[in-house]
């Protein structure tokens, strides 16, 4: 009889990296369903292409570099789905795939793979596409194939917005996964219940945008429209809560959310882009090491050296 000798603990919780990533994918399902309902089946095609490109890129890179293949941890799937949610349904498929390749290859793998990247891969993928293919990235088409403007563009131009209920359900122009606030909130609740994320960043992020918009815009309706428009909900729930690129303490997460909120409002109010969420998160990603340093926990009974 040979016995295994290892250090304690000899018991592990059931949650592992793959189950966490799978939970994030499950939490995104309502948003994808909403996209199919609102924009049609092509949404699914975009999601499939993004996921396939992300997983394949990771697989080929790791094979090529003779690294252990980690596609089984579902993290590339998460990146693919989130990137797809950040694209308009009409995006040419090769562009969608290109976004995934940039996200996985440049942002994730070249920085050392899972957990070592400093910026959110999906966000950089989105920004690269946005800057490279501005035309297709802002071609907002409604289900009836009528071109439309996003609520943020409408607000900037001073036009007429969809009603609050339509804003909430997602009957409006926008990226395929960002439009339905309802679907995103269902995903948020799921992630909270499964303890995948904490409430701190999303609540601080959305709360800050709400309060600042109210102060700057002067009325509640405007503030409500601001928090339901654009990529705010998607960003706050799914991208500003990415583990590797955000602080790992709750106080740090509050600061991160607050910073994201302030930057989003600044860009939306005074920037030349209608949308500010992805730039705000990317900027805060870069600040994360500093926030982490400022928000270290205080050891119990610890005495200053």
């Amino acid at each position, binding site marked *: 009889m040979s*016995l295994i000798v290892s250090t304690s603990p000899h018991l592990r919780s059931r949650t592992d*990296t793959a189950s966490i990533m799978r939970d994030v994918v499950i939490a995104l399902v309502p948003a994808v369903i909403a996209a199919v309902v609102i924009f049609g089946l092509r949404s699914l095609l975009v999601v499939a292409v993004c996921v396939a490109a992300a997983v394949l890129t990771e697989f080929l890179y790791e094979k090529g570099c003779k690294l252990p293949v980690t596609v089984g941890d579902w993290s590339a799937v998460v990146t693919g789905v989130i990137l797809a949610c950040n694209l308009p349904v009409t995006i040419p498929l090769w562009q969608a795939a290109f976004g995934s390749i940039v996200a996985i290859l440049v942002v994730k793998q070249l920085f050392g793979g899972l957990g070592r990247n400093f910026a959110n891969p999906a966000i950089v993928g989105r920004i690269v596409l946005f800057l490279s293919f501005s035309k297709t990235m802002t071609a907002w088409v409604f289900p009836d194939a009528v071109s439309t403007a996003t609520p943020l563009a409408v607000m900037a131009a001073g036009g007429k917005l969809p009603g609050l209920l339509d804003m909430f359900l997602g009957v409006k122009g926008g990226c395929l996964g960002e439009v339905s606030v309802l679907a995103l909130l269902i995903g948020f609740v799921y992630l909270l219940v499964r303890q995948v994320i904490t409430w701190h960043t999303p609540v601080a992020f959305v709360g800050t945008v709400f309060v600042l918009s109210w102060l700057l815009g002067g009325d509640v309706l405007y503030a409500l429209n601001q928090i339901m428009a654009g990529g705010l909900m998607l960003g706050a729930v799914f991208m500003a809560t990415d583990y590797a690129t955000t602080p790992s303490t709750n106080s740090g997460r509050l600061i991160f959310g607050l910073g994201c909120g302030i930057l989003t409002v600044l860009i939306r109010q005074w920037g030349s882009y209608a949308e500010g969420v992805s730039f705000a998160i990317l900027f805060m990603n870069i600040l994360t090491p500093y926030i982490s340093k400022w928000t270290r926990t205080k050891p119990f009974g610890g005495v200053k050296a």
Partner: protein
Amino acid sequence: MAQRKLHGVHVPHRKHTADLAAVDMGCPAMVTIPMSMHIGAPAKPLVKAGDTVTVGQRIAEVGGFVSSPVHASVSGKVKRIEDVLISSGRKVPAIVIESDGLMTRCPDLKPPVIENQADFLQALTDSGIVGLGGAGFPTQVKLTVKNLSQIEAVIVNGAECEPYITSDTRTMLDNPKLVLEGARLLQKYLEVKRIIFAIEDNKPQCIAKMQEMCRQETGMEVASLPAMYPQGGEKVLIYHTIGRVVPEGKLPLDAGAIVINVTTLASIARYVRYGIPLVKKCVTVDGGAVKTPKNVIAPIGTPMADVFAFCDGFVKEPKKVLYGGPMMGIAVPDLNQPILKNTNAILALDEEEAKLPPTTACIKCGRCIAHCPLNLMPAEIEAAYERQDVEALAELKVNICMECGCCSFICPARRPLVQTNKLAKAQVMAYLKAKQAKEAAKK
């Protein structure tokens, strides 16, 4: 704003043996009794090969101030004194006794005569009792308090927060009167004003029993604590019962508290009443590989193999065998390892339970930080350790880590965080010592 409760993790309870009263396994053929079953200096053997010994006879004396004597747990003949490897990695002498199967009691055993605190402490020394919750700190040393008014409360640790283990549960249910007597001894000789029996709320029978015991007493109370690992950790227990923080590098007494394990307390009372030193131990025998999990009373020094055999052996091949629970227990290399004074459980895990999960990359989820009872940052400690930054490790206070294992338990990437903490601790201790020496030299 003060933190109301310390963090921890929810572990599966698996207290399969909670309702099983402890059964005496009888006499093993041979016992191996190491001279170091406690923290401190090893005991010095008083016998040599060929000597005849009886149960309860002192076979080794204290080897220093922090030390504990050792008594024969069976009657028979000393076969040899040999060096054995103990779980700390040190080699210490062990007395091997071949049993004559009679369990003849040492004729000199009689209850100690106690008139004052000094007598009481001497009795504790003679009893060979050490902290039975796991640490094995000699009890007389812990209870040697110069200024008795410093003790605001004694917290009797019946939390038993490790999965599987129910030996303290059985102490409270099988010997509640001994527990009570032990508490009265503390009131009498250490002038303790407040005694708190701290029990996790997953043991309602124990809570009810101890409440019943306390009803007629003054200065005794029961604290029902939520079942949370590591509720039974000393610093955690003190904070959750009397709200005091034990500062880094200080003793519980500096926060006005003494924490004593409930079985230790009962053993003290047993010695004072009957004069029987610590020669037997109730151990929980469980784990997926064990056929009939039980609570077994075994003579100290009994090989684990005999105790497992008393539980009808194995249903599956054991792949990992532990002293203690799965969170802090120590894995042993073979089944010849003896039952020690501070052994409260032996677990034989089957293949499924013993499987070592593959370690993957840290995803920086922060779970280790959110669940550390002492608010440490295991992920950052690991990073600092990997770059061998001792200064950063000292700043991160890895030296106060109690090695409870919450961080490793909760880590979704299955990283060996507590193992890294242990390695880092040693480096920080050496670093702090060198720093102190340097500062002393300056003065």
